[in-house]
């Protein structure tokens, strides 16, 4: 019987192979490609930029859905926006698809009229018109995915707030409770990417506004188009032949999912990749002096800080909070722990944004800190200190920074019990106002000072100020500042607010980290913007 079973098994196995051989084959990513034979090699190794990066955060390439770092980086090079930031300047939006815009006071609203550039074509060859802009904004609002709050909550838009008055003119009506400056800044982000409405409408299924299609395809007018996304493996962007701007020197950009920094370093040194995107300070140090390789760093918009819960005694006392800030050796953290891969920033707005406050009054002044504690009537304090696991932005371990702070605070008689936990657990405690001292980082949702000042000051927003139990009238001033349309007056208002928070808020802002990259020496024109992307069209190799 079992001899026959053996024969049956062999026949079954052969049958499976034959069935597999006869079944219709699918190439990974072929669904996104016109040709099933399309491959990373289509553009040739010489003109394809290979970037190793942790792509595990990818969910979608739909500009109305994506809100993840990897997708923001890639998609920024696929879709164009009405306005954009040029280079590393994140203070003044410049024309892009819109050649000009006019902001009018329409009584209870603002009316912003955008005039569109003529002759722009999508990758499909369809012309870009005002209808595409209206469709793009409306689908983002109606889909109501992760980034939609930027349009609905921050800019106060509804689907009917945008209309096309002619094929090259778009008018947006905004409530006066929102800032036109902030709206322009939001438009530079990926959610402002204009999609090809004809192509996307043709792909709509079940009222999804084409989001299933745009998950791993693209319909933009930018210098590149999504060729394919093989989950957990790679993303290939190919140059868009219909791009109206300066054509990309590269024929393709291949993002490989390689999360391990050491593997990225090896592959870079071997010349198998052109850019390593997730290197730590250890890898950067190892790459120094290696032939054929260079390293570079660029400022991020993150701030690493310690939140001090003002609901917990004695952190409700402003002098205790000031003492904790005063005792910290910020220079030591930046120089010794980060190896210089960060900047000493003590305000709540990072360098690079309008409203950045350069003031750094605190630096390991033990005597002054002790005096402040004495004034507060506190000789000896013990607090729990919640710290995430793993690496902190800038290349140091969270635990090392925590140990340094513990040592600094011990010098003024403050004892902290470090409790290390996963970020998810830490956030759960922090959100519930149950932390005492909590170390974490924050990055703005959009490159505008309001994206930091509001969460750091507005208790009712249930964000950072809430988590630290700090309900202060400064929040009103922060909202007023956001609505100021004169850029200079706005910056001045933010200076006053950030100065106040610097000495009264429940935060010890430690530093602003740099992002670190390894590049092959022949890679030129790679300039990382602190918002989280690089213009790949200007990169050569």
């Amino acid at each position, binding site marked *: *019987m079992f001899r026959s079973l053996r024969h049956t098994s062999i026949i079954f196995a052969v049958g499976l192979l034959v069935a597999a051989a006869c079944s219709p084959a699918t*190439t990974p990513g072929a669904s996104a490609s016109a040709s099933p034979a399309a491959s990373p090699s289509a553009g040739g190794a010489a003109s394809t930029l290979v970037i190793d990066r942790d792509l595990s955060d990818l969910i979608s390439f739909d500009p109305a859905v994506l809100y993840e770092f990897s997708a923001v980086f890639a998609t920024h090079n696929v879709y164009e926006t009405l306005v954009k930031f040029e280079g590393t300047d994140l203070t003044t939006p410049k024309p892009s698809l819109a050649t000009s815009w006019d902001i009018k006071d329409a009584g209870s609203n603002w009316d912003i009229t955008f005039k569109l550039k003529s002759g722009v074509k999508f990758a499909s060859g369809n012309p870009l018109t005002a209808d595409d802009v209206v469709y793009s904004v409306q689908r983002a609002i109606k889909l109501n995915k992760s980034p939609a709050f930027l349009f609905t909550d921050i800019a106060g838009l509804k689907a009917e707030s945008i209309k096309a008055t002619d094929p090259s003119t778009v008018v947006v009506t905004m409530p006066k409770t929102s800032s036109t400056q902030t709206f322009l800044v939001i438009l530079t982000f990926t959610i402002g990417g204009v999609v090809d409405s004809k192509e996307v409408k043709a792909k709509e299924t079940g009222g999804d506004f084409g989001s299933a299609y745009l998950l791993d395809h693209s319909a933009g007018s930018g210098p590149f188009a999504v060729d394919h996304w093989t989950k*957990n493996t790679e993303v290939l962007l190919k140059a868009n032949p219909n791009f109206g701007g300066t054509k990309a020197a590269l024929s393709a950009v291949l993002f490989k999912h390689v999360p391990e920094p050491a*593997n990225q370093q090896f592959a870079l040194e071997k010349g198998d990749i052109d850019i390593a995107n997730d290197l730590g300070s250890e890898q950067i140090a190892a790459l120094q002096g290696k032939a054929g390789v260079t390293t570079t760093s660029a400022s991020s918009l993150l701030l690493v800080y310690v939140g001090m819960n003002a609901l917990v005694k004695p952190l409700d006392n402003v002098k205790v909070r000031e003492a904790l800030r005063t005792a910290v050796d910020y220079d030591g953290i930046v120089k010794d722990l980060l190896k210089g891969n960060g900047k000493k920033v003590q305000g709540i707005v990072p360098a690079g944004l309008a409203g950045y406050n350069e003031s750094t009054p605190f630096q390991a002044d033990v005597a002054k800190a002790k005096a402040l504690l004495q004034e507060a009537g506190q000789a000896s304090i013990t607090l729990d200190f919640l710290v995430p696991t793993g690496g902190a932005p800038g290349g140091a371990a969270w635990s090392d920074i925590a140990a340094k702070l513990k040592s600094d605070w011990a010098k003024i008689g403050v004892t902290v019990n470090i409790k290390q936990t996963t970020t*998810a657990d830490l956030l759960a405690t922090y959100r519930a106002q149950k932390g005492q001292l909590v170390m974490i980082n924050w990055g703005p949702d959009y490159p505008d000072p309001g994206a930091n000042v509001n969460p750091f000051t507005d208790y009712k927003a249930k964000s950072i100020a809430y988590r630290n139990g700090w309900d202060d009238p400064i929040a009103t001033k922060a909202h007023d500042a956001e609505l100021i349309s004169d850029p200079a007056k706005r910056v001045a208002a933010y200076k006053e607010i950030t100065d106040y928070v610097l000495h009264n808020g429940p935060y010890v802002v430690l530093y602003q980290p740099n992002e670190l990259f390894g590049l092959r020496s022949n890679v030129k024109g790679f300039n990382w913007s602190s918002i989280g992307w690089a213009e790949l069209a200007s990169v050569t190799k």
Partner: protein
Amino acid sequence: MRFLGFLTRRIVGIAAVMIGVSIITFAISHVIPADPVAAALGDHATDQQIAAFRADYRLDRPLPEQYLTYVVGLAHGDLGRSIRTRRPVSDDLFDSFPATIELSLAALLVAIVVGIPAGVWSAVFRGRLPDHLVRLLSLIGGSVPVFWLGLIVIGVFYYQLGWLPGGARIDNFVAPPPTRTGLYVVDSLLAGDLEALRSSLLHLVLPALTLGYFSTAVIARMTRSSMLEVLGQDYMRTARAKGLQERLVVLRHGLRNALIPTVTILGLTFGSLLSGAVLTETIFSWPGLGRYATAAAIALDFPAVLGVTLLAAIVYPLANLVVDIAYFWLDPRTQRG
């Protein structure tokens, strides 16, 4: 009939294991004090966004209702939606499982092709240099952590010598073969794509050797000890007395009998290879189930963790079932009623 009855009992057993595993994993993943939604949406999410996400994933429902919904979905082949990737878990598993199967099979092949002959060699030359060598290498294989070995082989064979690729399943500039089985080597063969075959085979070498080393060591030691036992049996003496060549005595009479315990180990080894793949896949950037499971666990992605656990709960008993079937073939005594 006896075989069919055995098969039925085993399938019922597998179903019972799956139900048990699903209940335990579901319970554990829902009692730990961490919020997967906050982990998925991050620091910036508002309470409204978190509430909407919880409703979307039915995480706001009572636990028994959530489990019931899950089980009903399971009965329809629906493993739920991943919180991290937002895709159906079955799609994620379908994408990542073939990579792990390919790696585990390659590692198993290494273990069989190297481990069994090494064990036989060691037993035949007991107490002499080959025996000492095999035992030493087995000791090292059983002691060296996979992650350390992985880093060393990448450092030596990829970084220093440049002989073999250090990660991924295929070269950057070689198109993966059209998907039929998801196993690149098989798919390359089926497509007649020699370039993809060459590249995918080369990419398999280091991770398969790394993952397979431990199993090779275990199998070599197991084969050695059972061979030593068999070599002393009366029937071996009889075979020699009949004037058979020593090679035939060892391979035909000795090895076949010595293989029974080794086959048992092979079944367990395949299971352990799947779990060992977690580290190997991480080190070698191998887009398989292990790396998927790691990312899911870090992100508290419970539907994905459940999916992986259930898959493992099927694979382990299935591997043991294959072992039991192999017994029938190897040991005729088990075929008698």
